[in-house]
């Protein structure tokens, strides 16, 4: 019975096979390296013969007195991103979807995805020019009779600025997935709804958005897996002595300890720690999604 079923799908297994081999060879085999998180890695003893040290490297992660703060910073930034950056892509895709003029639509699409290709160093240098104490924005504020704002050195502005820069850079790029999803909607649905007297908001609410639900759910679940990741480059370029307290995230902290190169075991332990948290969150989010009737990622 079972075998018969497998045989029935033999072509599908054939399609699966190359990918499976790929995952085993290039993703699973290197995972033997994870043992090093529990060892004191020495290049000349190799992965197997390096001495075991148990959870020592995991304890080191929590060694810093600033750890609570660093965790908070990391989660705060991710929360901001989830609340603002993530919906921004959906909103922009919906707006583009409402545009009837194809030329205008395509032009806007081509423009908003440009910033994705601008490197962080350029983004940050532009931000400094615009937001500096003698920058364009503050000159404008002063001309209008307001007090200038220390955007770049004020701790309160730090994470919002990081989020805004990220939104500027990635929102347009993020619309691509949603636009692809929207292109699959059956136009008949709209026609029928218009005949029934539905207005534009209702069309968006009852047809467009529901058809994006599956994609949104999956993206959200996957994002949960990276809730402790913040990247390094952008923050490193933006942070300064006055904002370090609010700007140091887990990734930055580990990077700045400068151990990546010197202490391979610690770096591995740190990555493993982040992945475990991510796994727990993905499993939770997946279960939640299934409860509300979504398909989930597995």
């Amino acid at each position, binding site marked *: 019975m079972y075998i018969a079923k497998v045989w029935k799908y033999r072509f599908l297994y054939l399609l699966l096979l190359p990918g499976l081999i790929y995952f085993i060879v290039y993703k699973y085999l290197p995972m033997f390296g994870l043992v090093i998180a529990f060892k004191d890695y020495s*290049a000349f003893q*190799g992965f*197997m013969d390096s001495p075991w040290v148990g959870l020592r490297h995991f304890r080191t992660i929590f060694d810093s007195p600033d750890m609570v703060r660093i965790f908070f910073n990391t989660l705060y930034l991710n929360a901001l991103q989830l609340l603002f950056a993530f919906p921004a892509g959906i909103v922009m895709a919906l707006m583009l979807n409402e545009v009837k003029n194809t030329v205008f639509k395509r032009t806007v699409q081509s423009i908003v995805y440009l910033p994705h290709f601008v490197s962080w160093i350029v983004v940050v240098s532009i931000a400094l020019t615009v937001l500096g104490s003698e920058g364009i924005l503050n000159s404008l504020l002063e001309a209008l009779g307001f007090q200038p704002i220390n955007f770049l050195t004020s701790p309160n502005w730090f994470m919002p600025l990081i989020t805004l820069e990220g939104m500027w850079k990635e929102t347009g790029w993020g619309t691509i997935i949603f636009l692809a999803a929207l292109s699959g909607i059956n136009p008949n649905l709209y026609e029928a709804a218009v005949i029934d007297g539905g207005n534009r908001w209702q069309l968006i609410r009852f047809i467009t958005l529901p058809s994006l639900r599956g994609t949104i759910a999956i993206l959200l679940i996957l994002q949960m897996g990276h809730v402790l990741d913040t990247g390094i480059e952008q923050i490193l370029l933006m942070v*300064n002595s006055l904002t370090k307290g609010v700007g140091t995230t887990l990734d930055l902290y580990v990077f700045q300890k400068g151990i990546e190169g010197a202490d391979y075991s610690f770096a591995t332990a740190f990555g493993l720690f982040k992945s475990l948290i991510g796994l727990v969150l993905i499993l939770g989010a997946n279960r939640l999604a299934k409860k509300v009737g979504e398909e989930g990622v597995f």
Partner: protein
Amino acid sequence: MKKKNASLLLMLSLSLGVTACSANKEETQPTSSSASTGTAPAASSASATASPSADPAAKKLDISLFEGVWSAIPDPNGAGIQAINEKFNVNFKANLVPFDQGGQKMAVLMASGDMPDFVGLGGADPSYLKWAKQGAFLPLNDYIDKYPVLQLIPKTAWDSVTVDGNIYAIPRFFTTKYRNVPIIRKDWLDKLNLQMPTTYEELLNVAKAFTFNDPDGNGKDDTYGFVMANGLDNEMAMGSGFYSDTWSMKNDKGQYLPGIITDASKQRIQFLRDAFKAGVVPKDWPVLTYKDNRTTFYSGKAGIYYDGTPGNKGLFDQLLKADPNAVVETIPPFKAPDGSQALPGLSGWYQMYSLNGKLKNDPDKVDRILSMINYFATFIPPEQQNENNPDFDWKNGGVGKGYTMENGVADYPEASLSLRPKSYLEIAEWAPSDEALQVEKKAINPIQKAYAEKSVKLWSTPGMTYINPVFSIHSDLYDTKFWELNTKLIDEQTKMIVGNTSMDNWDKMVQDFLKNGGQDVIDEVNQKMQEAGAEPVYK
């Protein structure tokens, strides 16, 4: 079923892991030369000229190098490398990568047992010490006597790279003098009828005048007294006693202290705080970078900055365009609270080569590598750096090809990078003294030339160069923990300068530093200094 699959997978991966590791070892063990053969380029023509004899140099050897380099990366098959292959009868493979990425690739190569015959490293940092202790490198104690250039390397430099009595690296030359120290627009001083400052009070007045009295005479309020950047880059230390990274003042217990917590630094931070309040530095300095500052100073918009000698030609060319009458001078050091009045010296070396530990059974190859290093590091005096010196001519790929001569000064165009053998083994030649380099002679730009001549003279004053005693020691705590704490101190000091916190916090800041591990660093550093007999020296 799931469980079964998982364990099977684990077994599979473990066994593969083991074989992968052991395979590595075998591959590189017997004659690590075989590993690098592979795609030998058109070097075969070179072997034709090799003379057949019992001479060990007659055997053509495969030699591989890995290094992260600052300069542009030459073509791996360029004429320069072919010349090296011919001259040393080798098949040289120089795997050069951009410096930024060098450290990471190095870590991977070392960890996966792919270390080439020799590697270029940044310095005696924690990674180096770790690899050295693990036996990655060849002890060179028995070899170095045979190579004349290596005799020139001072004991302090050898000490820095020695681990448990073994020398695992060959340090490369760097000047002891000519570190980047505060420089000033002398023409602005003269124009505003001001004297060269000798105290922080005078310095503040000068900075104010540079900001508000229109030193460039363009009628606009567009100049700054001085510029500084994020992380207290250009800390305005007017003499070795004021620097954050020197060890020259003692506490009550007679221990040397790191400069960043001394009263001299407190005085300096107070000055910066006053200067910030007076508006003589860009208000956004905590978010600026050194690049912004260089641009500001060398486009004639700031009066004080810091730079090395002879400085960068491109930057001085900019200044020349911005203001042809500019005069730049090094600010002579102020008298520090510890009584010193000197400029901070450098360690006298930077970057190094280490050989693969597996070469211990291959003395011919060790000799060939060291001969190459010896040759490239041999000093050619400035007056002989022309086409008449055969070594100079060869190292640089021949006049008219690898380099050109203009008014007796050699020029090395980027386009002929791969024609110069030197591009593949870029070692600073070991000069008998800093003065022998005659750095001032290489400046063509008149502003730069005048600056360099004056600066070299200042540096040549006896007793002017302070030698940091930490150069001679190795302290794990200093190498790692100290710099972590140092960053925190800089953050605190930044807050004091911009007025976010009061100067009254100074003592608390120092206490926190000592409590959080700073005292341990000081203890260890002082103990090691005593063992090594290291004291601050003024040369």
